[in-house]
């Protein structure tokens, strides 16, 4: 038996929920070498895991240039994102929705400098920040179009140790446009449009819509047929606020609702529970026009920095932790023209104080 031959120590794999009870029973089953041995095993990847330090160490050579154009952004003393220096005069790109207006930037040489937002591209969720520094090492782009599934990728950090490693799971592709959904079934009732079904957990049920409600208007626009409602909702985006006027028992009610994502209706709790098993996800993780899907395990605060191939060339910028199995990067080929436009002032940052967090595709 393979199992007997190769093991000298059995350790209970701890699932977070059961950690407490396993700690006690595990202590009885296996005499711990030290009081915190179990904690250590949970924090450090095991020797056989892909992310063990011996595997990551093999990437040092690949990232030894790219780490120099990788920076980190901090707010209230904690890291909120990584960033990629795209111009030696202090222009740095990052994931817009993770950074506040007042973030500081830690450069590779250890300096912490203030940032100024100069450009914002909400569709790609990119922010271009300017720091007061010159002669910075700038990104060296690679050929993202040559990447095939199975290619190694390293997410760099400002140090020699990569943040994480992974492979291309699926070549770069356009993402379908996100589709908004209210979450109702509709029927024609004389001249009226009546709700005959409300999907549990949907925007409609959150807003308190009921079977039998007549939808009179959406955002001030009169709704004469079910098709008009569908078309109106389809023209909007998930997360958009809509204002409905409904008629219930002869009364007219104004009902605000926040539209949902059509790919995520149904038992949302179950979907989100499963997707987030294994760690937190980025707040903004959909709606990018073009992405490279990779299996690197990132935290939301690891996005915004370069994703490099084994030659140390940046093939993309990490833009979101999407699910338990996937992170998205914007491929170099797709964002180079966007970054050029941002540098040229085509997407000026809004003036006045702004929390970038509030920016979404829906606005």
């Amino acid at each position, binding site marked *: 038996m393979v199992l007997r031959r190769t093991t000298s*120590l059995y350790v209970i794999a701890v699932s977070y929920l059961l950690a407490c009870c396993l700690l006690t029973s595990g202590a009885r089953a296996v005499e711990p070498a030290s009081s915190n041995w179990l904690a250590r095993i949970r924090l450090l990847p095991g020797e056989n895991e892909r992310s063990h330090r011996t595997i990551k160490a093999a990437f040092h050579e690949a990232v030894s240039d790219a780490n120099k154009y990788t920076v980190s952004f901090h707010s209230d003393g904690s890291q909120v994102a990584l960033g990629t220096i795209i111009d030696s005069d202090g222009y740095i790109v990052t994931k817009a929705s993770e950074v506040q207006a007042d973030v500081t930037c830690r450069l590779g040489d250890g300096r912490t400098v203030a940032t100024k937002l100069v450009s914002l591209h909400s569709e790609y969720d990119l922010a271009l920040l300017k720091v007061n520094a010159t002669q910075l090492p700038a990104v060296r782009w690679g050929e993202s179009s040559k990447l095939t599934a199975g290619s190694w990728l390293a997410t760099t950090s400002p140090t020699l140790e990569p943040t994480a490693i992974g492979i291309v799971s699926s070549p770069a592709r356009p993402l379908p446009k996100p589709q908004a959904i209210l979450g109702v079934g509709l029927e024609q009732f004389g001249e009226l449009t009546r709700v005959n079904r409300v999907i549990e957990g949907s925007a409609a049920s959150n807003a308190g819509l009921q079977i039998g409600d007549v939808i009179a208007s959406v955002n001030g626009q009169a709704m004469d047929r079910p098709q008009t409602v569908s078309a109106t909702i389809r023209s909007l985006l998930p997360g958009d606020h809509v204002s409905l006027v409904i008629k219930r028992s002869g009364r007219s009610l104004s009902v605000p609702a926040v539209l949902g994502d059509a790919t995520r209706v149904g038992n949302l709790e179950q979907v989100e529970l499963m997707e987030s098993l294994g760690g937190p996800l980025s707040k903004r993780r959909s709606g990018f026009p073009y992405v490279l899907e990779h299996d690197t395990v990132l935290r939301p605060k690891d996005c915004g920095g370069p994703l490099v191939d084994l030659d140390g060339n940046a093939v993309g910028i990490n833009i979101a932790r999407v699910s338990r199995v996937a992170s998205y990067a914007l491929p170099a080929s797709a964002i180079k023209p966007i970054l050029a436009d941002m540098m040229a002032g085509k997407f000026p940052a809004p003036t006045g104080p702004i929390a970038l967090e509030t920016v979404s595709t829906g606005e």
Partner: protein
Amino acid sequence: MFKRTISLRMSRDDCGRVRRAHGHTPALRIAAAIAVACMALSIVRTVQAEEAQSQANQETTAPLSELLKGTAPQSLTDLKAIQTHVQSLIEEVLPTTVAVQVGAAQGSGVIISPEGYVLTAAHVSGEPGRTAWLVLHDGTRVSGTTLGVYRTLDAGLIKINQARRQRLWQHAAMGDSTDVAPGQWCLAAGHPGGFQSNRPPVVRLGRVLSLNDNSTITTDCTLIGGDSGGPLFDMDGKVIGVNSRIGNQLTVNLHVPVNTFRDKWDRLAQSDSWGHTPGREPFLGVQGEPESDDPKIHRVFPGTPAAEAGLKPGDFVLRFAGRSVGDFATLQSYVSDEEPGNRVTLVIRRDDRTLELQLVIGQRSG
């Protein structure tokens, strides 16, 4: 120890929702993801001599075969050797991975024979004799029929319906899961989140972390709903497992060992359906003497279906769901043929009376 895991089936939302104008991706929802309790001891080896070795020969490249077995890569050269191998392996075997839809369940599968046998998870194919729709790597949609399901280990089989005779399907070979060892590299494929028309099967690279009594393989190839039934390949491109369920941690991704399919092939191919999904075992709540030759109930546990139906210690069960019961072991086997929630009629002898009791089969939770 028991660990909570979640099976990876997704199901299609067919409620009367606002429809998309175009695009074929159906809205998805997880079908009652069953929290499954299962045994999963993970194994951590004590530090081996590998690290000392790595310091000794910094520049040496280990043979590729050793790297693929799990010897840590020590240089860019080693990583490139692994990369080249993995890239060509994916090109070779990814076309054998298919998307599977059976009723509301969406998952994945892998073609393993030229006649079109497809391995999948039992919780994807559901039961024998259903129509399965498969989407091949090139987008072609073909129909199939579900064959056997072995629910205990989550193994299911589908056969592609032959439109034309003689068509041979591109397939992967089945490996031998008893040869699998912790540390070796492996590749999981499937359709996480459900099939997307412009996305080929999605691959994840990881390593085998443990083998658990030949009932599951644990890897750090991350899985999620929609991956169920997809293949776990070894570095020769052979199928060594089938994606089944996950735990909380990123390192708890469980696969059905391929030898389950080998060992149960005849029953699966003959559309037999047996066993119970872990966590959904049927039970009554009685204790008897399995060695004895009478069907006498020795104990009835409070709050169980047996107690609710009015069974009492000392009762003899004569008939169970229309079948006569000779001894306690027979009663046990009849119970295991039921599903939780089934209503059955028991005929019992109590003292000198014969009584009929109605009972709803319960579910033994982990």
